[in-house]
């Protein structure tokens, strides 16, 4: 709807001036939009060309084979998925790694066992929960030192904020790899890597909540002579706790995914098993694990959404990564 095409009423002199300004503004904005889109388009096509060039298989060479590869992951019959998931013996067992489902059983008593992938999934979820708690505790301790209203001193606030930024931006792979070199393979590298990242990420979100908090309870406490810790505990914490817990739950959702990925680079849990089975082409095992992972992620997301709604109501549904 371009107003210049409309035949409007005849305008007064000042009205014409306003219209002229508006047209100039509009024209300038349109130029910027076109230029911006053009720049984006050039950057995008350049990047795509570069990515295709750097890849070991070229996009258009590989595209027709995409579905051949999918066929590798069709199991011999539907029941195989079920057997792989619950570690039941397979009728196709030929002694190879592809059908050795019962080998991974995790016996609790002589007859009762946890199927391997359930156990691994439990491990992954536990890594996520454990490191979310550690990260939340760390972020809680740091956030008040980074908030302008609780720490007026620039000299303390600045290093704390930069420290949290470094924790957040430090590549998780490196932390996991370094801990891996010391502790060897297991869940600890994953826990440390995710916790460190979580401290930084939650710390940032937390201090923003603290800075937006209502300062009236704090003023009241200061008026009766409360010290810093008392102001924090009675004036700040009750206000920010609902928001904090909502962010912790959001982080838990992210960490469940992160702990699967860290698992794939040697941090234990289901990620490692999944990577192995995809690279070996074990159809039934891969599908069993993907189903388990999908169910877990959905369950965690639903649980966290339900709890967040209970804690803070609808406004807790803003995303944060």
């Amino acid at each position, binding site marked *: 709807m371009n107003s210049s095409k409309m035949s409007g009423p005849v305008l007064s002199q000042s009205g014409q001036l306003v219209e002229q300004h508006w047209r100039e503004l509009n024209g300038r904005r349109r130029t910027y939009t076109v230029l911006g889109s053009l720049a984006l388009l050039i950057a995008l096509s350049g990047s795509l060309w570069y990515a295709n060039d750097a*890849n070991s298989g070229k996009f258009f060479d590989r595209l027709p084979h995409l579905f051949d590869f999918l066929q590798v992951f069709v199991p011999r019959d539907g029941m195989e998925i079920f057997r792989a998931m619950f570690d039941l013996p397979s009728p196709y067992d030929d002694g190879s790694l592809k059908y050795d489902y019962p080998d991974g059983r995790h016996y609790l008593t002589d007859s009762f066992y946890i199927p391997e992938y359930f156990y691994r999934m439990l491990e992954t979820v*536990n890594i996520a929960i*454990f490191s979310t*708690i550690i990260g939340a505790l760390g972020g809680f301790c740091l956030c008040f030192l980074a908030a302008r209203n609780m720490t007026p001193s620039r000299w303390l606030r600045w290093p704390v904020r930069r420290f949290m930024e470094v924790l957040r931006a430090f*590549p998780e792979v490196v932390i996991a790899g370094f801990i891996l070199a010391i502790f060897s393979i297991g869940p600890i590298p994953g826990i440390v890597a995710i916790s460190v990242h979580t401290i930084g990420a939650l710390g940032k979100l937390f201090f923003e909540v603290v800075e937006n908090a209502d300062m009236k309870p704090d003023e009241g406490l200061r008026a009766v*002579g409360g010290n810093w810790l008392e102001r924090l505990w009675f004036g700040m914490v009750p206000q920010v706790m609902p928001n904090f817990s909502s962010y912790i739950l959001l982080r838990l959702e992210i960490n469940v995914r992160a702990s699967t990925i860290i698992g794939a*680079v040697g941090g234990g849990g289901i990620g490692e098993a999944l990577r192995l089975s995809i690279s070996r082409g074990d159809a039934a095992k891969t599908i069993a694990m993907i189903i388990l*992972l*999908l169910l877990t992620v959905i369950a965690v997301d639903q649980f966290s959404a339900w709890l967040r709604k209970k804690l803070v109501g609808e406004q807790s549904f803003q995303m944060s990564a």
Partner: protein
Amino acid sequence: MTLLSTPEYERLAARHEHLLTQSTWKTCRAPLLATGLIVYFMFCWWFFSIGKVLGSANYSIAGNYLADWVSYEIRPELNIDRDGAITITYSRFDPIGPNPNPDWIKSETATVTRQPVASAQPEAPSASAPAPAPAPAVPAFNFMANAPKAEAATSITTIAKAPVTETAIVKSSIDLGRSAKIVVDHQSVILTRGSETVELKLDNAAGTVTAQAPLPTWVEQRMAGGRAYAYFGFAGWAEVSADRVRIHNRFFGWANFFFDINSAFFGKSPGEILTLVTSGPRIDSSQSNLSLAWNDILYNPSWQHLDVWSKLLQTLVMAFVGTVLATLLSFPLAFIAARNITRNRVLNQFTKRLFDFLRSVDMLIWALFFTRAFGPGPLAGISAIFFTDTGTLGKLYAEALENLDDKQREGVKSVGASPLVIQRYGVVPQVLPIFASQALYFWESNTRSATIIGAVGAGGIGLKLWEAMRTNSNWENVCYMVLLILLVVFIFDAISNALRSRLIGTVRH
């Protein structure tokens, strides 16, 4: 804090009873939560067997690896011959260059009469013979043990040669850092750390190392007469056997960051390089000195600058393209998914479940899947980010559309606009800032996650980092890449923050 007196408190309590007495649930909540946490921590301690892992870890390795991030080692090896001559060799991979003559090794030479052994064996596996020892002083004992049998036989046949007189090193003094020192001659090794001194007697014939006094904690000898290890903290460590002293001398900094030992510019001061580049004669006749220097830097084999930079660019490209494509696709899909815009429950539900599926199948699974499909490289990473983020952004956009203010749409509708125009002028101006800011947020966060999915094979710097870490010997390269990543992430954070605050008009920080 000021406390109330009892009557005051009671008066207050009488007036506002409901504020001062809490429900049982509220009083119990905090202690219950704390107990729950402690129990859960204990469970995790057992479940992950943290205690066992912490107990069995090798912490001295951790210190060494950590030191490797910002320092490097030079490892001279002093071979002590039976007749007292010492030869100094360096490992082939040492960053010291072809003509090592460091000023931290001081040697005394003397004329010794030696029984030469025909040097049928190849030269020691060093880059070259050490400068102060011109004689073919091949340590006999050591090499007889290592040499293949045939060569040993030839040396036995030629052993009847007449003894020769020549100049050889008989005593060497090595400085490690400021306070540590090792003095080696053919009978003893004197180790100094700070004010403490330890003397070890070497018996080359019997092959034993014996201490003169009880050893301090920084010198370790596991078996009487066997090898001794001396640790000098950050400055390095040494391994002393009867016929050989191996020294690890640690220096702060990154070795050969610009020019490798094979480069023509190796070991030159910045001033010398500058004159060479600007006015010196051509080193390589086919190209100017400037381009030679630039090439030597880019293809420096121990730092691989060009490779690291291009891998970093790949990671950035992965995040950028993945996010842009995801935004472009989820934008129209969100209009289909939003209840208030597309009045078709089947289409709404279908699109929303599609978003859920894309989001819930992890980025990891997509990454592994596309790595197998396209081969390792940024295409796999792009596809993984694209698929996951189409789901997440689509869901967010659809939610934003459903929370829309309807008045603008009604206004545009009331003047008889077509459906497409209603969306363009009634909806898009409202949601575009939010959409763009969300997309920027994801771009920023994907720059980080692209590193990690790279490590599972999706290409980029993640894979390079992972390869550098696997060998446990390239921690300085890891440090270099981490610094580059941190730099890039901070720059992108700043850009995205600036753009976002212009879009939605709030300034954070």
